[in-house]
């Protein structure tokens, strides 16, 4: 199976209210797992429980198929993470911040320089972090997480605060990690477009519950196009087409067909025309990933 990170009925209760409920998440080796959900869905809480920063109310976490509690030191030594806002010592320079992590991680100097180079901070490394912009702090946080080139990288909203060019860079960087360094990446985001471009697998969480988990292609297969046909007499048309073997459902003023090939569309049209039913419109509707996500989370408001 090669599960790198998995959670088993993981739940967290705050003040009697479930923030995460019976979450079973599993991330396989070499995957880029996108953890997607609206704000306040429980993404950060889940990631914090995976890293042992928060204790679950119920359930447990395994990393490398080992229980977290008993193997905390080992697991954390193999894990790099960036949770919520970046952590830094403002009065120290970027390089000195990296040194603090280096001392704790016990990694050689070349890792520090390599990580700084990867996030393009090597020119600003001698500047105090309090003078960094939010994007630079975020990059520093990513560099700290990368420094030991861990087996698992957990990034909570890694592109927060970055400009579009920076987002693109970090996206390319994350995509390259499994191949270049054999990492498994678990990242969260509230932006579907973000996950869509990076992730190979995806988990969608809302109000603490996992709504969908699977590969990106599985999610995309939910966006099969539908054909909408509008005629002068929908009722008759539906009956006629049913006899010809095309089932449809009435939606508003149109008939909706699923999984129709182009040839079938032609056939449907021909049979309607020959039966003197006037065809007003034939439209193809593609359900965007955005809509699938909204359907799943039941949220129409901003994500």
């Amino acid at each position, binding site marked *: 199976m090669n599960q790198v990170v998995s959670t088993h009925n993981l739940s967290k209760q705050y003040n009697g209210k479930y923030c995460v409920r019976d979450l079973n998440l599993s991330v396989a080796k070499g995957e880029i797992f996108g953890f997607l959900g609206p704000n306040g869905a429980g993404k950060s809480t889940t990631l914090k429980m995976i890293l042992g920063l928060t204790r679950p109310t119920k359930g447990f976490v395994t990393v490398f198929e080992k229980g977290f509690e008993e193997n905390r030191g080992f697991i954390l030594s193999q894990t790099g993470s960036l949770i919520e806002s970046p952590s*830094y010592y403002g009065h120290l320079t970027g390089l000195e911040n990296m040194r603090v992590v280096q001392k704790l991680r016990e990694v050689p100097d070349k890792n520090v320089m390599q990580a700084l180079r990867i996030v393009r901070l090597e020119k600003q490394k001698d500047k105090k972090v309090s003078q960094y912009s939010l994007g630079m702090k975020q990059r520093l946080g990513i560099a700290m997480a990368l420094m030991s080139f861990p087996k698992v990288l957990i990034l909570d909203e890694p592109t927060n605060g970055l400009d579009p060019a920076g987002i693109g860079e970090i996206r390319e960087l994350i995509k390259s990690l499994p191949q270049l360094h054999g990492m498994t990446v678990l990242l969260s985001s509230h932006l579907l477009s973000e996950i869509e471009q990076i992730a190979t697998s995806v988990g969608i969480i809302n109000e603490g519950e996992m709504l969908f988990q699977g590969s990106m292609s599985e999610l995309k297969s939910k966006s099969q196009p539908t054909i909408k046909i509008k005629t002068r007499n929908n009722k008759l048309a539906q009956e006629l087409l049913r006899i010809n073997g095309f089932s449809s459902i009435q939606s508003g003023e149109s008939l909706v067909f699923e999984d129709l090939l182009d040839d079938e569309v032609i056939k449907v049209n021909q049979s309607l025309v020959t039966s003197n039913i006037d065809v007003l419109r034939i439209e193809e509707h593609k359900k965007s990933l955005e809509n699938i996500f909204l359907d799943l989370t039941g949220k129409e408001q901003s994500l």
Partner: protein
Amino acid sequence: MMRAISIEFFKFRHRHIYLMATLFLLIEVIFLFMGMSRSISMKPENANWEALIVMFASMNGLLFPILIAVSVSRICDMEHKGNTWKLLLTLSIKPGQVYAAKYIYACILILWVCIVQVLSIAAFGIVKDFEDPLPTFLLIRYFFGIVFTSLAIVALQQWVSLMKKNQVIALTLGMIGGFIGMTADLMPSGVSRIFIWSYYSGLSPVSLSYESEELDFIVRNLNALLPLMLIVIIAAISIYLAGSMHLSRKEV
């Protein structure tokens, strides 16, 4: 553990915390030396070690709680400011280790301040040519009195500073402590011993007697002070352990 402590020292680059603490102490030292010099110039027999120690002991009751509150707050606040507590914990260091490293760092700082103070007292007496020889044993007792009391107060301040993000709470506690420390001698001893800050004057090897018309300096018996020392050491250990366990259980 040594690694955790060395990281604390590394984190304090550019912070000048030793400079701050030393300057703070120098203000106390200069202030008291000026007062002492004036008193000696008016009455030459005032030039004695006991008077000097009593003055420092009661002044420490006011200044040390504040100095410790400020220093410990600076040591702890940097973790709040940059959200670094969670960073440290994900780097496989245990919360108890970070807590211990910070405590040891703060104690080394306060130890430095205590050493400088005792050396200053010795230097002043020698420069002013006090009649009695340097009372080494008395100064050692004085030194341990302030060190032990400080260990307990550092533990208390660290607990508050790490638990409460808002450092005003920790600093206010320090100021209240300073007030209690200064006025401790005026309270009935049963009451004052409840407060940890009162032990600066409480553990002073020399005390003032107000019984006669003149001020008398009484050198306290070491045996009489030992139980108090024991209390303060137990308090330091218990407060430290309580704080460390409380923080280890706290979720980020």
